[in-house]
Each structure stands twice: as structure tokens, then as C-alpha cells.
């Protein structure tokens, strides 16, 4: 199966703005699912609320579009009630880390067998560009009109600290690497977390001198640094620019899993 075979043709086009990064991530995820060979009948796509969370509605399989922030709790119920089902969750930075932060750390702690893909656009896209827990310091949003003052969450680090078995971060520029990371996540038992930095030209780029979709993708290209290089530079005491996006696989381990096949 090709990734296009997974789309519900009668639901296209999507509601996403022109140039939105969410479509790229969905394509990567569906390619990865095709590669591991899962059948439609055995996989359930789950999401919360937000632009990113609209993903399951476009996929021709069982799908649960839930309430804001709660996708992981719903997915936990599905997985534990029927461990034969494979779970893929789409979420946004606000959905996962603000309103859903508690469910996030507990799903990691339980190491529930599922793959969670967070489209991190550093903003609340759906509601029109408000600040989120990943909006960088100084960035403009409709609720940080003088620049964001709060610190941010490192979602990948959070997932590792909370106990996830697999964690990786890539961007919508890194289509191949992102696809491979999602595939590795699907294949790793336990909680797999893939953070995908994506452009939101409408809610974020427009207000932060990254107006065109390609501006943000170019930013991802020029500001990403492989984790190995980043670690080496740090070890050598060299300076790393604060807006660097550290990419790569961060953890792959084998802690006991909840909801594995019975």
C-alpha cells in the first residue's frame, strides 16, 4: 500500500491552510504505516483537538477524534481493552503539552504501547495563533503581543524523562528522516514519541518574520543540528545558537510496556 491509499478520498481537500506543515507529517506517518505493513483493520488513529488533530479524519481506517488534550487517555483505553489494535496518535503542542500535559507524562510513565506524533508548530493554530507551551521566548502571538515571556517545554526531553521507550525529533523539512523515525517508533514496543517541528504560516510565521511557508522550511533546514553534533559541541564547550532545533533519535529502550499483545 502507498500512503495515498490510506486517505479518505471523499474528505479531500483538507481544511489545512496552503503551505501548512501538517500534511507533510501525515504523509510521512502513512508512508511509515504502509512500510510496516499494518492493515486497516488493525490500526486506530486517535487525536485531540487542533489543526493537527484533524489528521485522523482524513485517514480511511477506524479513527477517534476526541476532546482537547485527552487523546492519550482515550488511546490508553482502546489499547488496554484490545491490545491487538495498533495505536497512532496525532496531536499538537497545545493539545499535548498544555491542556493534555498530565495525560502526556502519565502515558509515557505507563509506557503504553502506542506511537504519538506531535506536530509542534509552536502556536495554537486552530484558534488563530495564541501562545503555546512551546512558543519561543520573544515570539509574537495574539496572546503574547509584546513577545512571549514564559519558558518552553522540550517535548522530546519531557517524554524521555517521563519514561517513553522511543523518542525522536525531526522537522517537516526532513521528510525521509521523519518517516524513518515514525517507522522506528511504530516498530518499538511501548510509548514512542515523535516530535515533528512544522510550519504554521498562518498562526506563527506571519507574525514572526517567516511569512511564506518556504521561509519556515528554510529556517528548519538552516537551524537544525544533528543530536550527535550538538552533543559534541556542548562537550567541547562551544556555543550553540539558542534557536537551534536539535534533531535525531534520542532514545530507544526497552522498559516494561503496558498494553502489549496479550
Amino acid at each position, binding site marked *: 500500500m502507498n500512503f495515498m491509499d490510506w486517505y*479518505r478520498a*471523499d*474528505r479531500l481537500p483538507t481544511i489545512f491552510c496552503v503551505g501548512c506543515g501538517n500534511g507533510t507529517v501525515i504523509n510521512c506517518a502513512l508512508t511509515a504505516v504502509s512500510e510496516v505493513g499494518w492493515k*486497516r*483493520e*488493525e490500526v*486506530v488513529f*486517535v487525536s485531540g483537538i487542533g489543526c493537527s488533530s484533524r489528521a*485522523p*479524519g482524513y485517514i*480511511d*481506517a*477506524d*479513527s*477517534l*477524534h*476526541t*476532546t482537547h488534550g*485527552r487523546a492519550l*487517555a*482515550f*488511546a*490508553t*483505553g*482502546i*489499547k*488496554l*481493552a*484490545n491490545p*491487538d*489494535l495498533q495505536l497512532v496518535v496525532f496531536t499538537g503542542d497545545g493539545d499535548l503539552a498544555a491542556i493534555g500535559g*498530565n*495525560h502526556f507524562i*502519565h502515558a509515557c510513565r505507563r509506557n503504553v504501547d502506542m506511537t504519538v506524533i506531535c506536530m509542534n508548530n509552536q502556536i495554537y493554530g486552530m484558534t488563530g495563533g495564541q501562545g503555546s507551551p512551546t512558543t519561543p521566548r520573544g515570539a509574537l502571538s495574539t496572546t503574547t503581543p509584546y513577545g512571549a515571556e514564559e519558558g518552553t517545554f522540550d517535548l522530546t526531553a519531557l517524554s524521555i524523562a517521563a519514561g517513553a521507550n522511543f523518542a525522536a525529533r525531526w522537522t517537516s523539512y526532513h521528510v525521509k528522516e521523519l518517516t524513518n523515525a515514525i517507522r522506528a517508533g511504530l516498530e518499538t514496543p511501548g510509548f514512542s514519541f515523535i516530535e515533528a517541528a512544522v510550519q504554521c504560516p498562518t498562526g506563527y510565521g506571519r507574525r514572526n518574520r517567516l511569512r511564506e511557508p518556504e521561509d519556515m522550511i528554510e529556517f528548519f533546514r538552516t537551524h537544525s543540528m544533528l543530536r550527535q553534533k550538538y552533543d559534541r559541541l556542548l562537550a567541547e564547550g562551544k556555543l550553540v545558537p539558542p534557536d537551534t532545533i536539535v534533531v535525531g533519535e534520542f532514545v530507544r529502550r526497552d522498559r516494561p510496556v503496558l498494553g502489549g499483545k*496479550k
Partner: protein
Amino acid sequence: MSKISFIQGNIACAEGALAAGCRFFGGYPITPSTEIAEHMAMKLPKVKGTFIQMEDEIGSIAAVIGAAWTGVRAMTATSGPGLSLMMENIGYAVMTETPLVIVDIQRGGPSTGQPTMASQGDMFQCRFGSHGDYSIIALSPATVQEMYEMTAEAFNLADRFRVPVFLMADEIIGHMREKMTLPDTVPVMPVRERTERSTLPFKAEKDGVPGFTPFGKGHHVHVTGLTHDERGYPSTTNPDVHERLVTRLVAKVESTRREIASYDVTNPEAETVFVSYGAPTRAVWQALHDLKDDTVGHFRLKMVWPFPDWVEELFPQAQAYIVPEMNLGLISRELERHVTIPVISVPRLGGALHEPEELIRAVEGAK
């Protein structure tokens, strides 16, 4: 062989759920409901079921909804503060037509209130607590036997209507120990599942309820809390789609009011009629016994929602209704909407049950 048992109401509730085939429990500890979770934690693994203690009640109800979509009978149990946290996802269960059972062992509120004392303060919360128009079913047990039987029946109703069904008990009934008969089996109605994939999984059958399409069976169903059409696809700006959906969600329950109603009528010729549900029913039983007056009747609700609004047909001679409740008068207000004679509310706060003498005085006052 059925067997006689002397057990706590909360344990009877858990046993009733297990007998009905409940195989998933998601919950969060809260007095006075915790014994239900503890009993399920002990028993479910032995029948290949799943128990999970979630991080909060929002997660509990979410996990229960997720589990229900795999086709298992699923439930949670909580008390007022937990029920408040569940509200958004209860609306989600209504909108997505997810069958599930919520047990509320009511305690004194608002807020943390009286964790170990009984109340009936959540009777409107369970009916109206989530936003938007909707309908649910709520049962109200007055004995340990009923904790068992009504919990089991709640699953049948949930499956039939694809709605959340509430068991609205209280601390008194939940913690009381009393003799009961544990039957060998309970009636379990088969779920109306679709056998084939349909492009219209949310198209209702004649009774207003669509056949169920659990996950993992090739239905490819998209389930969303957004207003959706019969395909299950979001359709959020078409007024007709929204009106049709919400009207159906309400009508599928409300149109069966008379058929599913469950109540006891004592002395239909009575002039003064007690109306009760849950624990105060026990005080009414005692008062009727002490009074020995056949001009006094009793309308005892086992199903509170939907409300049986034809009360006047049942007590044609009634001059007044007396409604003892462990709140400041909730169901008495609902009753008032449906009758033309005086409704006398006998409220009780604090957790102690009405005294039978208090009810007898109320009868004298009404005459």
C-alpha cells in the same frame, strides 16, 4: 443456584457490573465510591478484563470511552468532584453515541464538601452538566439488591440507546451492608452491531439508534465530537445537520420515556403522595409503615431520567406531593413542571437521612 449474601452496596454494584459482562474499568479514587474501583481491580484481571487507575477523572472517562469503542462493556465510578471533571467527555460520549456506565456515589457538595456523607446533589449535574442539549438515562437504587440489579441493567440500557447511563447512588446506599440475593445470571441483551461495513455508520435505524460499529472490525468508522453527518464526517456549519443530529440524540431516549420508565406506585388512590428516589425512599417506607394510612401514597422512582412526566395519571386523586430529597429540592422542581397540584419539598442537607417522623409531620402539614 442463587445465593444469599450480606455485602456492601458498592461491592454489589461492582458484582452487578461483572455479572453483566463489564470487562473494563477506568477510575480514580474518590470517597465514597472507591470500594467499587478496588473490587474491580481485584476481580477484573481474573476474568481477562482490564482495570486501570487513571491520572484523573477526565482521563478515566476518556479511557472508558476508548475501551467502549473496542466493543467491551466499560464503566467508571466516582463522586461529585470527579463527575464535575468528567463533564466535557460525557458530552463527547453523548455526541459519539458511546455506550458506557457511570456510577456516582453522591456526597455532600459543592466542592470537596462532605466526602463521607450522603447527598443527592448531583441529580441535575448528571442530566444537564455538560454543555449543549442532550439526554441521558439515570437510575437511582435504594437497596443493596438494587445496586446490583440496576448496575447490570444500566449496561443493557447503555447498549440499547448508545448513551451514557448513570447509576445515581449515594454514600448511604453505597456503604450500607444489607442482605441480598446474588442471582446466577443477569439478563444481558445482545448488542446491535453492524455486520457489514456501511458508508453511513451513523445512520439511525427506526428507533433512532445506529447499529454499533466497534473498532477493529473493518468498519473504518470516523468518530468525532464535532457535529457530523451520517457518514460520521464533520459538518459544523450546516444548521440542518446540527439540528437533525441533536434532535435525534435527544429523541432516541426521550421518545421511549413510557416504555423504559421504572417506578413503584403504592396506593394509587392516595390524596397525599410521597415522591422519592434513592436513600430517602427508605425513610418513606418507614413512614408509610408507621402511618398505616391508605390516603397516603408513594411514587418511588427507580429511573429518574428521563422523568416520568405522567405522574398525575398514576395518582388521579392526589392533592399534594411531598418530595424528600437530600438536596435543597432538585427533582421536586422537575415534578412541579409536570403537575398542577402543590409540590412540597422536604430538603435535607448534611448527610443524615430524613427521619420518618419528619415525613409524617409533612403529611399532617399537607392535609
